[in-house]
């Protein structure tokens, strides 16, 4: 294992004078790559006509079968982040980034083989399972490192990385289309070659991140920053062991806060295009609707940075109060925008809603840091991402079923989303209440120095036998 010793935490210790501003680009190298997941849908249509080329042949894969690739990847994102969080935390960011790069790029290469052999389960295994592990490990890999380098602005630091996850699709989408254009011929769609090239590009890009990343020396603090000596009601100076966090009400309250915020956002995210066209029939064309979706994605990305940075000044709990209070008003306003036919107001409401959807993802690592300390924040964040996986099921199901129910009961298409919006607003009220009940973690859950070392030694860790 000597060859891989450069991946160890001790070999990533920063030398004196190392600039902490090199850490956000290292994190972005990973998050911009794995953010491709949001753009996977650009492959769906080309993959549904690998045999028929110009149109789907009977032996071609169906869109419903292809939809499972993305769902599997998101499921394994949540599962791997939850299962491997502690392994990531204790092995250090470089080992995690390297592993994420291998899984992510490997997922593309295995999927290319699946395309070549026209065998769908190989793609499920490649992009879905292997790529999903790359997503999960990559997503949490820089979180605690960023928080340690930026104790004065943890929200802004993690917001920058998680903004990259939102922004990855902006690069991947045009890049994929361009590559498929280059590799396609009259008898060939060019998806397999695109996967190979993208896998190679992503591997190199993520390895740059792994090479740059460093952990700060023990006790390091930025110039002029004095760490608070005492915990305050909502920001602890202590640490909570990763699995002990699960026994605290705070973990589960924040789990529901994330789940409800994401459920509301993700539910309407996939329907934004159809919703705008049905609510403003004759005013919004399909092309304009796709423009709106692009615009909303930009707000989703920008919100990750803006809201998480704001949380450093107004506090994490107050930031979520804003998300839930303002979100409730805006969701409740959306049906009114349809009633008065105001497209501009609809776009405004949705733009702010999506900025808060992204902001919810980006602010939560710093919220966890405030509650549970820095030592296991990455691993605890990994466990919390199961809320995302759950919301990924709840949100679209709620929106689709409520709409379907309304349509079958004679509600006009333009008003079919009204109930959905009110249900989403109600979910945000519940989220507001969860946030209201968040207070400091009881000191009986705090780690003591000796106990911490004993627990770490006693507990089994993946790959540490």
């Amino acid at each position, binding site marked *: 294992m000597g060859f891989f010793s450069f991946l160890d935490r001790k070999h990533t210790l920063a030398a004196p004078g190392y600039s902490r*501003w*090199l850490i956000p680009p290292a994190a*972005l190298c990973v998050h911009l790559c794995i953010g491709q997941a949001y753009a996977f849908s650009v492959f769906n249509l080309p993959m549904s006509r690998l045999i028929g080329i110009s149109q789907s042949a009977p032996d071609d894969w169906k869109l419903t079968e292809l939809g499972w690739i993305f769902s599997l990847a998101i499921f394994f994102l949540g599962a791997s982040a939850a299962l491997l969080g502690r392994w990531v935390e204790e092995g250090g960011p470089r080992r995690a980034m390297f592993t994420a790069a291998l899984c992510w790029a490997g997922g593309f290469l295995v999927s290319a083989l699946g395309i070549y052999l026209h065998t769908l389960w190989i793609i499920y295994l490649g992009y879905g399972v292997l790529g999903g592990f790359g997503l999960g490990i990559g997503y949490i890999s820089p979180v605690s490192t960023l928080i340690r380098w930026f104790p004065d602005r943890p929200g802004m630091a993690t917001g920058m990385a998680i903004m*990259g996850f939102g922004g990855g699709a902006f690069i991947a989408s045009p890049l994929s289309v361009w590559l498929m254009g280059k590799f396609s011929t009259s008898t060939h769609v060019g998806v397999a070659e695109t996967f190979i090239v993208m896998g190679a590009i992503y591997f190199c890009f993520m390895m740059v991140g792994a090479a740059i990343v460093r952990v700060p020396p023990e006790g390091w603090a930025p110039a002029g920053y004095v760490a608070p000596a005492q915990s305050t009601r909502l920001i602890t100076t202590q640490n909570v062991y990763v699995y002990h966090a699960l026994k605290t009400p705070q973990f589960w309250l924040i789990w529901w806060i994330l789940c409800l915020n994401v459920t509301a956002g993700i539910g309407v995210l996939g329907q934004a295009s159809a919703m705008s066209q049905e609510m403003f029939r004759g005013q919004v064309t399909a092309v304009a609707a796709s*423009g709106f979706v692009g615009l909303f994605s930009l707000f989703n990305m920008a919100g990750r940075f803006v809201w998480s940075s704001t949380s450093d000044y107004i506090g994490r709990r107050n930031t979520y109060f804003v998300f839930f209070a303002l979100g409730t008003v805006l969701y409740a306003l959306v049906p009114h925008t349809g009633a008065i036919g105001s497209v501009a107001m609809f776009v405004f409401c949705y733009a702010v809603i999506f900025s808060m959807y992204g902001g919810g993802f980006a602010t939560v690592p710093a919220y966890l840091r405030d509650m549970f300390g820095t030592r296991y924040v990455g691993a605890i964040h990994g466990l919390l991402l199961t809320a995302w996986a759950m919301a990924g099921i709840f949100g679209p199901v709620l929106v689709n079923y409520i709409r379907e129910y309304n349509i079958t009961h004679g509600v006009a298409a333009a008003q079919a989303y009204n109930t959905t919006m009110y249900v989403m607003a109600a979910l945000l009220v519940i989220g507001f209440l969860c946030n209201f009940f968040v207070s400091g973690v009881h000191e009986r859950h705090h780690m003591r120095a000796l106990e911490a070392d004993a627990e770490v030694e006693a507990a089994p860790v993946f790959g540490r036998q």
Partner: protein
Amino acid sequence: MAGDQQTRASGNGVKLVLAWGFVGIPLAWGVVQTLLNAIKAFQ
């Protein structure tokens, strides 16, 4: 000593420009592409 610090600072400056350019340029390209598409859709 002061010379050492100056060399380290300028070295860091180059690394920062390279690192931020490495991630910033592709991201800016992607954002511009998305904005252009959005503008086209509104026209």
